């Protein structure tokens, strides 16, 4: 059984505890780092969503934490749209593993 947690600016996620989702408000990269530590320190399996804009400076920490089987940290766009960070991460990973870029025709 995993909990769903979300790290995003407070004005976006303030009402989400109504849906049973744990929220960790963060308005800056430093806040996001602290929030990520708090969310992962509980040593419980969790599914953590974090907005791409907050995750820009936390890529190393996120990829380290994602190695753990209990944790899954997923980047999502915020109200201003996607920065392309999540898709570029996946693309780099696929490129490193199979040695070729995957182009998908729409």
């Amino acid at each position, binding site marked *: 059984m995993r909990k769903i947690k979300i790290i995003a600016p407070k004005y*976006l996620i303030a*009402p989400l*505890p109504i*849906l049973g989702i744990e929220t960790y408000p963060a308005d800056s990269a430093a806040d996001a780092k602290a929030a990520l530590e708090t969310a992962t320190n509980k040593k419980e399996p969790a599914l953590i969503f974090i907005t791409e804009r907050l995750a820009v400076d936390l890529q190393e920490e996120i990829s380290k934490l994602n190695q753990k089987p209990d944790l899954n940290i997923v980047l999502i766009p915020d109200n*201003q749209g*996607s920065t392309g960070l999540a898709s570029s991460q996946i693309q780099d990973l696929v490129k*490193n*593993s199979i040695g070729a870029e995957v182009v998908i025709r729409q």
Partner: protein
Amino acid sequence: MPKRVNATRMELLRLRRRTALAKKGHKLLKDKLDGLVQRLLEIVKSHRRLSNKLEEELILIFQKLALSTGQTRPEVIYAATLLPAVKTSVDISLKNIMGVKIPQYELKSEGNPISYGFAETPAELDQALSQFMDILKELVKLAELNKAILVIASHIIEIKRRVNALEYILIPELVGAVRYIKMKLAEIERSTTVALLKIKDIVRAR
């Protein structure tokens, strides 16, 4: 630098068996690698499709959430979140794809999200919450695909390293050692024949 090997028939037989085993293992690992690459490409395609779809929906939902948070007094939202009527969690099961265990998520949620007073909250909040509840299942699916890509990609890197080690180091070394022993044994045989001929000549001369 090739390892020193004993040029004996026993060693030759042992090395031949090891070469056959290494070639078999190499073929199996290569087949597994091909299968995993194929699965990875399928997962990447569905991940891309789902993330494109979710991106547009999430932007709209977050905009609504931002609007409703702005229109409502913080203490009202705080009061509404104190006793959540919905319990949400994710159940995990493991799926085996060619020996790689991939987590499968199933969203479990109970209760009605709209369980707060309507008097002081805007309609956007109700809409945003019910839309977020609808999209949550797909978000969990996106997380599942994300984890699957991470796990399969790391396995592919590991298997590739093993395949390369077998193909470019172990198998050539074994083949080289077998060739060396064969040549050494042939050389010993030739030298024995020459020695015998020489001894025969010496014996005849007497």
